[in-house]
């Protein structure tokens, strides 16, 4: 009976404290994954497209394009990616893992406690303690485990959200690459893809000069190069970059809102911001998909 009064007290305390709502954290983590996947794709595109263009020039014009500068570009973009995008990927994944109780590492001590309840058996393999007591003990241990881990999860999420100013700096660097800074100069993303577009235009003009001498080859390659320029069009005109910039802004605004009220259920302001974030991330996906056509 002594057990039951103690257990009852614990159950009462549990019901009074309530459970944290990790849904907002989970949603934010998912949108972070989608956004950083899109930005990673575009970082990769800028890096690899330079060499693609060099190959085309070599094949069509017989030109040695000094691919060494494509390597410098890949190095510079790679460094930027690892210092920004990859950190944000991990940040989002950690928030998601903390929001998802199944992924969280449970407290070792409480697991041992639970195991010891289950393990209480006599020499004949029969449980030493009354079955009802064992079951109750396991139920309480499970509940305590849930509470302990939930507290730990809340604390861990809180610590991650407290880092928002550092995260803001990283997201800011990423945004400058895609959209530029307040001075209005073109972003490096757009500048480099304009280089590639310029090279492809050079090839089209070379093919034009060759068309009377090698008409079939010229026609085939002109169609190929025009298709490659079409892939660049929405990146060169700034529309993909603008969508990425808007999504990064919405992501930062969501992080700000989340950091103040992460665990409150039915929180209207969060819902509005979250819908805005999802919409911006969706627009990025559409912009990049349409750039591929």
């Amino acid at each position: 009976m002594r057990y039951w009064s103690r257990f009852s007290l614990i159950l009462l305390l549990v019901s009074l404290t309530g459970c944290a709502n990790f849904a907002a954290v989970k949603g934010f983590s998912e949108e972070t994954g989608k956004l950083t996947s899109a930005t990673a794709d575009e970082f990769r595109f800028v890096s690899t497209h330079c060499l693609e263009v060099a190959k085309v020039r070599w094949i069509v014009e017989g030109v040695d394009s000094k691919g060494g500068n494509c390597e410098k570009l890949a190095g510079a973009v790679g460094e930027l990616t690892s210092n920004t995008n990859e950190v944000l990927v991990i940040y989002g994944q950690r928030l998601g893992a903390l929001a998802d109780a199944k992924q969280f590492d449970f407290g070792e001590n409480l697991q041992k406690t639970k195991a010891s309840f289950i393990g209480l058996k006599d020499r004949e393999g029969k449980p030493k303690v009354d079955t009802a007591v064992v079951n109750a003990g396991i139920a309480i241990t499970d509940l305590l485990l849930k509470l302990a881990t939930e507290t730990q999860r809340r604390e861990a999420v809180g610590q991650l959200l407290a880092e928002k100013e550092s995260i803001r700096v990283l997201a800011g660097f990423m945004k400058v690459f895609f959209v530029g800074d307040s001075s209005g100069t073109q972003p490096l993303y757009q500048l480099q893809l304009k280089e590639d577009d310029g090279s492809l235009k050079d090839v089209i003009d070379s093919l034009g000069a060759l068309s009377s001498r090698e008409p079939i080859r010229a026609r085939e390659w002109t169609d190929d190069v025009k298709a490659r320029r079409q892939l660049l069009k929405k990146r060169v005109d700034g529309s993909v970059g603008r969508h990425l910039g808007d999504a990064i802004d919405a992501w930062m605004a969501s992080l700000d809102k989340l950091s103040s009220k992460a665990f409150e259920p039915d929180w209207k302001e969060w819902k509005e911001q979250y819908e805005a974030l999802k919409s911006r991330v969706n627009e990025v996906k559409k912009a990049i998909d349409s750039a591929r056509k």
Partner: protein
Amino acid sequence: MNKELKATAAADRTLNSAKTGDALTGAELHKAIYWLNAQADALNNEKTANTSIEDLKAISQQQSDLRAQATGLIALNIQWLAGQAKVEVEHINDALDYAKGVIDKVTILKQRLDSIAAVVTFLGVLLTATKIGDIIAAGNKLKGDLDSASKKG
């Protein structure tokens, strides 16, 4: 400053000493990147049905070198050491202004391509040299090459 001296001025204009945190990055070099691309774009006007295969290849190669140099500038991130003599944006812009003045007047294709090649080489040295002497020598060579091209055509 006397315009004819600008090319050498680009090299032996006083090289200021870097302070901690001074850097030269692609973000500052928009004028140079634009210049390189404008030269490459203009060379497309030389490609006609009557252009020989050899000239066509030389033009395309030059365009490729110009755009590759632009990519190099876009990717640039030089972090100067404190006290080190540093190359500044003005050095680069001065050299390009002088070069433009010469190239715009050169009508013979070979001389134009050689002049442009001289600028690309100069930029390559400017951005990778570790000794001041190399930069000054590159600036003098650029001026010499441009002046020579200007006389020939």
